[in-house]
């Protein structure tokens, strides 16, 4: 392969690799948050307001959003 073409290929490959890695890290963060919300729900949530707030949090971690 032409060396100049190699630099072009590597530049694009590295860029998409880093962006892909970042998107993967975002999806991991969403998964971790979902686990934490589930843990909170399974814990003894004492008041109705808190339960409502956790429900709200769950709505925000909807897979369609992140």
């Amino acid at each position, binding site marked *: 392969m032409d060396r100049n073409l190699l630099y072009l290929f590597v530049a694009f490959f590295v860029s998409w690799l880093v962006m892909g890695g970042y998107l993967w890290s975002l999806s991991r963060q969403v998964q971790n948050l979902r686990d934490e919300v589930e843990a909170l729900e399974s*814990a003894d949530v004492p008041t109705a307001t808190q339960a409502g707030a956790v429900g709200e949090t769950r709505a925000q971690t*909807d897979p369609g*959003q992140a």
Partner: protein
Amino acid sequence: MVQRRGSAMGRVSAGLGVVTAIVMAAALYMMFIYAPTDAVQGQPQRIFYIHVPIATIAFLSSFVLAVGGIGYLVRRSQRWDRLARASAEIGLIFTTLVLLTGSLWGRPIWGTWWTWDARLTTTLILWFIYLGYFMLRAYAGDADRAARYSAVLGIIGAIDVPIIYLSVDWWRTLHPGPVLFTSGGPAMPGSMFVTFMVSLLAFTLLYVWLMYQKYMIESVKDRVAERQFQLAERQAEIREGMAL
């Protein structure tokens, strides 16, 4: 009500994601097929179509980070801090990519991976500022102090951006001067300029989409932390009550 609002925002996010993917695919087509090969630099010149839009987004991130920081210092609202945190993370990713793609472009054209040129050095300083931002957040202790200190650092980062931009005018550098928005119009053929603009639009959409995702994640993180704190307090109260 909350669920309905959540699903509506989810649809907007999904729609924006689809539009971003379509525009990005069009930009890639234009970069490799539509735009002609540069007569002087050859194939490596095509790195320009990602390097400059990525740099623009890195600078935009720094500006948004500073706006979030100023907003937090004035209002002390978590919303401003979340905005700053979201933009800082994306800014760090994009500044890293500017340095990497610049290095990969510089090697075949300048014959070196790196030189202590004014623009490269000031961009590296911005990268260190982004890195310092996250170190401050991790080690500053209580949340308010971390937010205040990092807000100040974010503002300093934004001051570096015009210095990066004007460095090619202020100092003798290896890095080329402005070629896009000059008094005589773009110093390149129309097809190259159009390709650049489509790429810039694609990366701007990507930034907006990433910002939305990251802001929502930070928002939920704050709520979860708050609930965990409330739950721990409540459990401590119950334990105290049982002990009595």
